[in-house]
């Protein structure tokens, strides 16, 4: 099984979900879209929670699809341990001990606790562990971090990273938060008004400036990079990617990481300016341009096999007379690079 088939059609009042696509059977597929675009409905269809007219008429309990809910939905009458056992007991094929997943999510210290004594972040971790214990063939995550405040969200995110690297179960991750999507997903599906408007690998899909969803605040690009050097004197790391290299503050311990650069943090020049506070000056080729607003232009840059997206004023565009296929230098302040 290399792909997961997704073919759903559902009418719900005025809203119509019409999805016919397939996603890779490995890694995390992010489903991004505004609220009301049908993200949750799509997950519910996959889980069998919507009355459907599709060929798969199996009830949810026979599908072996794990569902991580927004509000964790732990069973308050059971302890953490019993919650973890709930799905595990009901799957005769679940062979791995629950302690394995409990320690992966670091909830092994909470096993005897009552669910009502858990913090929001702990509850969400237990919820994820509970789904892993049932050893599903596919995991659906419906905005698992959206009910948490920023601090708790940052506490849970590393566990999701871990999930990414330590399990082979494909995950569909729904979110309207571009940061989470950029950090976690490998593959991206963009939903709008019940339809898939774009899909593909995270990097190339995110760099599609023709999509209105990836303009404005969401405009930017993601690079997969490996650390090649660490400068202890200034606490800077040099990351290499296919098409260039970037200095990033800190990150001493990161071997490989995903770097994220917002469109607004890149400026363009015709020549390489040496005497500036900007550490990163990368040669690039203009790949595509699109007017974003009356005053701004989005420019997609090609660097080897990677893309960057830059936002410049239309006046600069005019003054530098930038054209597609021109060679330019992208200037990126190190401190704006996110990881």
């Amino acid at each position, binding site marked *: 099984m290399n792909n997961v088939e997704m073919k759903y059609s559902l009418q719900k009042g005025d809203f119509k979900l019409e999805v016919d696509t397939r996603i890779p059977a490995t890694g995390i597929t992010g489903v991004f879209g505004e609220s009301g675009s049908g993200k949750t409905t799509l997950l519910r269809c996959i889980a069998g929670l919507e009355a459907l007219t599709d060929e798969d008429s199996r009830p949810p309990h026979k599908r072996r699809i*794990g569902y991580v809910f927004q509000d964790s939905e732990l069973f308050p009458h059971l302890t953490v341990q019993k919650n973890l056992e709930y799905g595990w007991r009901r799957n005769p094929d679940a062979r791995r001990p629950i302690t394995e997943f409990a320690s992966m999510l670091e909830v092994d210290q909470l096993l005897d606790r009552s669910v009502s004594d858990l913090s929001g972040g702990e509850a969400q971790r237990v919820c994820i562990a509970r789904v892993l214990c049932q050893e599903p063939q596919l995991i659906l995550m419906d905005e698992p971090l959206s009910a948490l405040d920023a601090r708790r969200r940052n506490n849970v995110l590393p566990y999701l990273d871990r999930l990414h690297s330590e399990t082979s179960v494909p995950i569909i991750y729904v979110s309207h938060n571009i940061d989470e999507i950029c950090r976690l997903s490998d593959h991206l599906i963009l939903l709008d008004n019940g339809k898939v408007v774009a899909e593909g690998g995270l990097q190339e899909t995110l760099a599609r400036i023709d999509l209105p969803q990836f303009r404005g605040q969401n405009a930017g690009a993601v690079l997969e990079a490996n650390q090649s050097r660490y400068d202890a004197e200034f606490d800077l790391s040099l990351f290499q990617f296919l098409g260039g290299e970037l200095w990033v503050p800190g990150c001493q311990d990161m071997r490989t990481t995903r770097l994220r650069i917002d469109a607004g943090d890149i400026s363009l020049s015709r020549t390489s300016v040496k005497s500036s506070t900007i550490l990163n000056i990368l040669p690039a080729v203009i790949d595509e341009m699109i007017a974003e607003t009356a005053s701004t232009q989005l420019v997609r840059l090609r660097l080897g096999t990677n893309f960057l997206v830059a936002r410049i004023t239309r006046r600069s565009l005019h003054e530098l007379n930038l054209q597609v296929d021109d060679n330019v230098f992208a200037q990126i302040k190190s401190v704006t690079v996110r990881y």
Partner: protein
Amino acid sequence: MDIGPLWLSLQLAFVTTLVLIILGTPLAWWLSQSRSRWQSVIQAIVAMPIVLPPTVLGFYLLVVLGPAGVIGSWWVKLTGNTLTFSFAGLVIASCIYSLPFAVQPMQNAFESLSSSKLEAAWTLGASKLDAFFSVVVPLSLRGFVSATVLAFAHTLGEFGVVLMVGGNIPGESRVVSIAIYEHVETLNFAAAHQLSLVLILFAFFILFGMFLVNRRWQPR
């Protein structure tokens, strides 16, 4: 003390409550989940014993359960006995009379349960029946306690329906409320006092116990 009617009342209340919990649970569940337009109709029918005078209820039950009635004649054929003026007839009458007191607390409990909890159970591999017993029932225990207590207490206190359907046959249909009525009619106030006091104390303690349990048990 006149212990016979008291004992009969307890038996009647026990059997009625048992039947109501068993039959009322699926009914309450359906009422809590259904979006059918029949839902309101059924809900209204279930609630009717609250507002109808017991005599009206008793009168129709007498007609239906009597030897010439739809159910009564069938019962005579089946058992050889009449359903009216018998313990079995009383159980049927009590079940209808106390139905809303059992169904409504359960329905409220089911409705307050978030549907996502149930969906979580399904996606974790629980069938609908499994999820009902492993998630819905434990999370609705307060509703079940209220339903049990109210149905039991309400059956214990019924009078009008019993008088119409059951009459006043010792050991068969002479329940405590009928006995009290008869003691008053015959001016035997001492006996009436005794039985009434027992009922008052019972009503207080059973309700007190229910509220105490409900206060302690506050699963979210």
